[in-house]
């Protein structure tokens, strides 16, 4: 089982490399692949870890953490439509007011986080 999976994996990777060598400039792709690792390991994770440090001590930690995971994920998925430069090809491409939608979503999660923290704090006090 492991051997079969591993062999399939190596074969798939070999096929991928072979296909990559056929595209116009494989070096460009290599730079962007490396850039993906640098962006993730060098910037995104340290920021998330930093936020994690701050969240570690709050009341209702699990709920707050969950809401922050949701906020981060929604933001990551919305970034292209929020930041995309240049005019859209036609009015049916990126037609929505994404900034407003995103602000509403963040406000909703903010209220939720504040509520969860307040409840956690009140419970801790009553004890």
């Amino acid at each position, binding site marked *: *089982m*492991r051997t079969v*999976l*591993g062999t399939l*994996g190596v*074969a*798939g*990777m*070999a096929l*991928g490399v072979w*296909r*990559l060598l*056929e*595209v*116009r*400039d494989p070096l*460009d*792709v290599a730079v962007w*692949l490396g850039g*993906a*690792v640098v*962006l*993730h*390991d060098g910037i*995104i*994770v340290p920021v*998330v*870890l930093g936020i*994690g*440090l701050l969240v*570690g001590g709050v009341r209702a*930690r*699990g*709920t707050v*953490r*969950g*809401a*922050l*995971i*949701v906020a*981060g*994920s*929604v933001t*990551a*998925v919305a970034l*292209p*439509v929020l930041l*995309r*430069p240049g005019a859209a*090809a*036609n*009015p*049916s*491409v990126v*037609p*929505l007011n*994404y900034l407003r939608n*995103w602000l*509403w*979503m963040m406000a909703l999660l903010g209220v939720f986080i504040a509520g969860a923290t307040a409840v956690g704090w009140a419970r801790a006090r009553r004890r």
Partner: protein
Amino acid sequence: MNSMQESAAEGGRGNLRPGATGPEGETLIVQRLHRLLPAFKGRLHDKRTATVVGRWLGGAVLVCFVTGTVSHYVQHPSSWLIDILPSRPSWGYRLNQGLHVASGIAAIPLLFAKLWTVFPRLFEWPAVRNVWHGLERISVAALVATGVFQLFTGLLNTAQWYPWPFSFVPVHFAVSWLFIGALLLHIAVKLPVISSHWRRESAATLEIGDGADRRSFLYGVAVAVGAVTLTTAGQSFTPLRSLDLFAPRHPNYGPQGLPVNKTAVAAGADQVDLATWKLEVGGPQPFTLSLDELRALPQYEAELPIACVEGWSKSAKWRGVRVRDLLEQAGAPASSRVRVTSFQRGGAYRVMEMGRNYAEDPLTLLALELNGEPLHPDHGFPARIIAPNRPGVWQTKWVAKVEAL
């Protein structure tokens, strides 16, 4: 994220304790160096969490890979494949591509969660134990690079944003094989760890503990997957359209209630002189038809979706002439392979070929009307192809010629 604490000081409990005495024979400099690496005292960077999130991520990636590969071959079929591709189910491509984009979007929170969980392993010490360990670390690096790359390029492509210097389609396709290969290899390497942490009651899981904290983390990740899915899936799964907050398309936007990729102006096809426009039909007995003559032929209705490779799709009511009727009138069998040419200016999709399964399907129309009105110029006026189970780019607009091959 919660009790995550990094510090360069000696580590307490955790997966890695770079502060502990290093292997013998290390030079002082190396020892100093590895003391600079962060120590992870936080929880949930454990094998059970990695196993659970990895399972979800593996499922999403598998769906994404299979649907992406299917889409690639439907969009760019080899010549032997053209006549084999089926025209049913009529919603097949729509479902396929909706799943491709939705599973890719769902994989974004999962990939972040997975990489966060295993992040301390980046600082493993010694960095390389032996050749096999070195190869494994290289394969993990490839997995991280290709995973982040695929989700990033795919997501930006749906928003029609291309900041990179290379061509998207061949690169996204090539890297998908690298990604799935690295993933299978990774699963093979980790299989013993995965199986020993497969269940909540597995001995190795119980040894880690942290059950309640882990469940709350996993709930958070699951809710995040639900949130990104619900706020984008409405671009193809129209019952969710009112929740479509962040998708690059919305079913309510577009001429005649249908989104568009290439407009008539962009295609140089906005000025049609109906006095001179004639549809050419090629075959053993070729002929031409004016728009009025086309309208005089038997008309049929079909409810079929426009389903874009970028993931958005919407169903619409089309009315027009069956392609098979045109073929028969030209003396060609209904099950001919067909070439359709548009009068649009240039573009990679100006000339389209479709296999016999599509040509003979009674739902395949040369459509003249959309939702009860003549086609809007952006939807291909005066006539366009609409066929079941096909990607949007091959639903040729502004048709000039239909020929049996």
